[in-house]
């Protein structure tokens, strides 16, 4: 019995060695097969961490093989039977082991015979450690195959580069929005709607960051812009116009000249000057009072804001009637309205800054979306360069939001066209203001901007057909011809109502005529 157990121990040790070598070979085959499979997979599916994935399979295969090696423990009966067959022991060992507890007439003799024959045989030879030639060949073939796949160009590299460029583009767009947020926070001109603006920008930034692609990111910009535009007060232009007219009217009076300058500079300062003027009414000469009353009456007539008009009218009439106290009270009301105007302007500036930030983000994303659509998205670095992206076709759209402070305040939106080769487009037209010239800052259509000009339909396409939207252009666009006409009409109306020299009016007309030329030529 003890001899049989010793035989089993020796066979088990040899079998563990042989199995270890076999499982190591299996693990090697598995690991190399895994690497080859990964190499094939990354040619079919874009996968960035391919090296990590390929390397990961090696320890996994080894671990599985080691676990299998540890778990698998051949039974003693199996070991004996295998040894019988491989050592030519004619089933002596397996029979002896199976009947080790039996006491038949021949069992002892059989066990004795088995032990004797086992002693003459080399038991470890039953489980030799050897490399399977088939497995070795398979490993070599798979290794060569995997190496070849790793060295040959991979079509998925371009897709990966595009994804990387997309991420960079989205990160830059998100940063542009973040910069706009910071700019608004640091502007030093707080407005009551700053919190809402920051919230809208924060949401837009998050959506841009989380979007799957630049195209998806673009879809989040327009709603944000619409939300921002709702925050702007539509009565601001009328109030600005009224304030500018007041400044113009007061500039011709001795008493109100300093107030006029203050109003032109800044509504808040203007409010303080008007209050100062109200407190000095008692000390004004009758002539100055009359002059001031006339100026206020004129400003009242030109005022588009009803409250401003009423206050100015009251101040004028009170001065003419000699009721300085009532006039002062009316001028204080005017000052309060100028304070209100200052707040509205601050809000509008913050909205404009936010929209500018979103537009900057839009440009970068649209450029990358274009490259993705053209299959050039992989040129991450080139795509990030504004000039490189526009090589070839230099058409672009530019929208500009500008606020101007002058004798009049105005807001304006401008469009511009960019020329081939990256020549900058003309900037957006400035804001319009009554009795003043609005200055507008428009981001000119540089080479990275795109212009969609529905006014130039392709042959066979009606002008009324919906314009095909480009990447990121998720809002319907109005035909250029309609927009330019509306702008032209608004600009000419504004010049008619303002004290603008005739030469300047001609300049505005000439500008719009030039813009209309392509249509006329057509």
């Amino acid at each position, binding site marked *: 019995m003890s001899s049989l157990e010793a035989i089993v121990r020796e066979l088990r040790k040899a079998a563990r060695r042989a199995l270890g070598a076999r499982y190591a070979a299996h693990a090697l085959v598995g690991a190399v097969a895994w690497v080859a499979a990964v190499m094939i997979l990354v040619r079919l599916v874009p996968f960035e961490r391919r090296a990590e994935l390929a390397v990961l399979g090696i320890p996994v295969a080894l671990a599985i093989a080691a676990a299998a090696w540890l778990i698998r423990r051949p039974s003693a009966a*199996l070991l004996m*039977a295998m040894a019988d067959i491989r050592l030519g022991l*004619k089933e002596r060992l*397996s*029979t002896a082991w199976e009947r080790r507890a039996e006491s038949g007439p*021949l069992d002892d003799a059989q066990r004795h015979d088995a032990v004797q024959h086992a002693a003459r045989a080399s038991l470890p030879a039953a489980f030799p450690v050897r490399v399977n030639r088939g497995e070795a060949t398979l490993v070599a073939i798979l290794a060569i195959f995997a190496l070849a796949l790793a060295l040959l160009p991979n079509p998925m590299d371009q897709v990966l580069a595009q994804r990387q460029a997309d991420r960079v583009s989205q990160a830059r767009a998100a940063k542009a929005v973040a910069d706009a947020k910071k700019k608004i926070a640091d502007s030093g001109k707080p407005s009551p709607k700053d919190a809402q603006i920051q919230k809208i920008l924060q949401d837009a930034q998050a959506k841009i960051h989380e979007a799957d692609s630049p195209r998806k990111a673009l879809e989040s910009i327009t709603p944000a812009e619409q939300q921002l535009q709702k925050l702007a007060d539509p009565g601001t232009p009328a109030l600005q116009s009224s304030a500018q007219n007041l400044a113009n009217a007061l500039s011709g009076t001795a008493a109100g000249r300093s107030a006029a300058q203050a109003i032109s500079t800044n509504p808040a300062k203007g409010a303080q000057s008007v209050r100062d003027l109200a407190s000095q009414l008692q000390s004004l000469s009758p002539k100055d009072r009359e002059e001031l009353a006339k100026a206020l009456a004129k400003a009242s007539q030109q005022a588009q804001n009803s409250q401003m008009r009423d206050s100015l009218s009251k101040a004028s009439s009170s001065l003419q009637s000699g009721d300085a106290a009532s006039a002062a009270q009316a001028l204080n009301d005017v000052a309060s309205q100028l304070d209100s105007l200052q707040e509205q302007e601050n809000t509008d500036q913050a909205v404009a800054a936010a929209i500018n930030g979103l537009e900057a983000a839009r440009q970068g994303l649209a450029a990358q979306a274009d490259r993705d659509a053209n299959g050039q998205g992989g040129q991450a670095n080139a795509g990030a360069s504004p000039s490189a992206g526009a090589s070839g076709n230099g058409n672009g759209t530019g929208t500009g939001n500008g606020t101007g402070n002058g004798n009049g305040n105005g807001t304006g939106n401008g469009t511009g066209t960019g020329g081939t080769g990256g020549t900058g487009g003309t900037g957006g037209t400035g804001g319009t203001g009554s009795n003043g010239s609005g200055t507008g800052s428009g981001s000119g259509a540089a080479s990275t901007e795109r212009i969609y000009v529905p006014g130039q339909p392709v042959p066979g396409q009606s002008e009324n057909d919906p314009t095909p939207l480009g990447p990121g252009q998720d809002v319907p666009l109005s035909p250029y011809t309609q927009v330019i006409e509306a702008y032209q009409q608004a600009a000419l109306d504004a010049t008619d109502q303002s004290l603008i020299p005739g030469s300047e009016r001609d300049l505005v007309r000439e500008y719009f005529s030039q813009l209309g030329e392509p249509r006329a030529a057509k």
Partner: protein
Amino acid sequence: MIAEEPRVDATRVTELAQSLETELARLIVGQKALLRDTVIALTAGGHVLLEGVPGLGKTVLVRSLGQTLSMSFSRIQFTPDLMPADIVGTNIIGDTDGRREFHYQAGPIFANLVLADEINRATPKTQSALLEAMQERTVTVGTQTRPLPSPFFVLATQNPIELEGTYPLPEAQLDRFFFKILVPFPSEGDLLEIARRTTGDSTPQLKSVADAGAILTAQRTAREVPIAEHVLRYAARLVSATHPDRSELDSVRRYVRWGASPRGLQTLVLAGKVRALLEGRYNVAFDDLNSVAQPALRHRIFLQFEAEADGITADRIISEILEHTAKEPASK
């Protein structure tokens, strides 16, 4: 280690078999497989059907076996007019002390060693009389059943080429033979040796090497030889594989009409045990089963007519089965 000697001295069986083979070989030239299979059948207590063309020494072998064993021997020449009573004996009227009464006169089957020469020449009725006696080891005449002597060993011969006027043995009766041994034509060298030995002025005289008691002891000892479970399963798989509805071999499914019976498995295992002893081993090996598979199974596999037309023999089928049946035990 081994604490005690075996209670059965298996070496005596080995020595007995070896001395039998040696003694028979003095007269039978070559035919070692024939001698080995005959000795195995004798030691296992089974009957043998010898098939071969005339003149190959079938009868000489059986007669020589009778000489080497100190046992009663009788020969029955089967002919178409042979009656059952000519084999098992009959009641005859005799005169005993002036009275006439029936006495049983035993037939030639009452011997330890019976040669049934050209068994396929007798009618089925007569064949059945012998085959029933082979199976039951008793003979019933009238109302009395009489046991046959022990050991009882029948060696039947048949000629495979002379089919006219013969009665082929039915399948059920073939199954009662332990082995069917084909007697091959001797090689050229053996032919020369036969000529030298039998054409001189003296013929070798065989001596007796065993008696009935030794044979019975050997038969009991053989049954004690252990066989491992996986070896036994292998034997079962071999037998199972001879059946067309269980075999995975195309040749078996196509050519075999009916496979070996459970008696075939018994024969395979018992013959394997004897062969293990003859090889000086105390356990049955796969080789033992493979070695005895042909004589144990060839008369138990019944082929389709298509096999005959294609020249397929039972031996070829068995060879294919041996080649394709797995020996390694399943993993535990």
